[in-house]
């Protein structure tokens, strides 16, 4: 019982100070400055941008991801400490959006890293972004934002998909253990 109570307190505290990685992965980054600055001001909810992933809690994937960026995003995501949350921003992270037939952008973000929350639209309005953050806070408090646990549990599957994407090929997937040994 005591352990459970302690978890509740920790969730309550962590939802009030979300630090977001300062990484503009796509064009959705254009709506981030208004949210961060005086007009919409997300700092009143305890959300602030943070340059290093090691001290951040939230990773925002702002729009489409090319394979070259996906490599960096996976690296950033793995550098973040648990618990960590991912928000998929815009239609491009859900099904590819208007780049559905582009050879260089991934179509479904949840195949490569676990996503806690999606924001629909191209591009989402600042109000939608803030609403997403509030929803995320709610999820954290209830203990529903468990994407980072999934990443531990299904690590092999996520790694397999990432490898496929990085090599632009479905076959030729190297064995994960062999690669880790290097």
């Amino acid at each position, binding site marked *: 019982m005591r352990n459970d109570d302690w978890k509740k307190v920790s969730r309550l505290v962590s939802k009030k100070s979300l630090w977001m990685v300062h990484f503009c992965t796509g064009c959705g980054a254009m709506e981030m400055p208004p949210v961060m600055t005086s007009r919409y001001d997300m700092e009143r909810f305890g959300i602030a941008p943070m340059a290093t992933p090691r001290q951040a809690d939230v990773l925002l994937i702002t729009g489409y991801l090319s394979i070259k960026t996906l490599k960096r995003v996976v690296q950033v995501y793995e550098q973040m400490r648990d618990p960590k949350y991912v928000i998929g921003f815009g239609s491009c992270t859900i099904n590819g959006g208007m780049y559905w*037939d582009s*050879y260089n952008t991934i179509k479904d973000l*949840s*195949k490569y890293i*676990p996503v806690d929350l999606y924001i629909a639209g191209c591009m989402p309005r600042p109000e939608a972004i803030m609403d997403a953050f509030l929803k995320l806070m709610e999820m954290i408090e209830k203990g529903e934002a468990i994407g980072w646990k*999934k990443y531990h549990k299904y690590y092999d599957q996520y790694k397999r998909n990432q490898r496929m994407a990085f090599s*632009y*090929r*479905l076959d030729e997937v190297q064995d994960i253990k062999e690669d880790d040994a290097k």
Partner: protein
Amino acid sequence: MMAKELFPDAQEIRKGRIRIEVEPEKVGEIVKKLKDNGYDHFVMLSCIDWINDGQFELVYHMWSYEYREHVMISTRIPRDGGSMVTLRDLFPQIETYEREIHEMFGVDFIGNPRLGEFILEGWPHMPPMRKDFDTEKFVKDFYYKIPEVKEE
């Protein structure tokens, strides 16, 4: 001197747009001549894939601030194993355009040391801007077939 005086066979598409069609060997000489005659702004280098003719068309765009005239120097090279001499010594930005065209179309620019990976990373297939690369088929065969993460 204006492009029309320098090259009498130049063709005027519309006001301020001149088009010159030449052999690949002469491009360097013409770009140099235009550069010395007031066409001092190199706009860009484009490549067009004419798959039915089996040719790539390289278009060198130049602009003169003095005459307010835009010249397109167009040349055709074979699609398979086509190559071109680099002009990176004339204008530095040509080097970047050549890197892009090398990656996206597979044209070899002889003498450019920076050809190689530029925009894509680890791309194992045919250069993607070629007309015979079907992006829709590639997406269906690759991205859609990556399995979803199965949760127990």
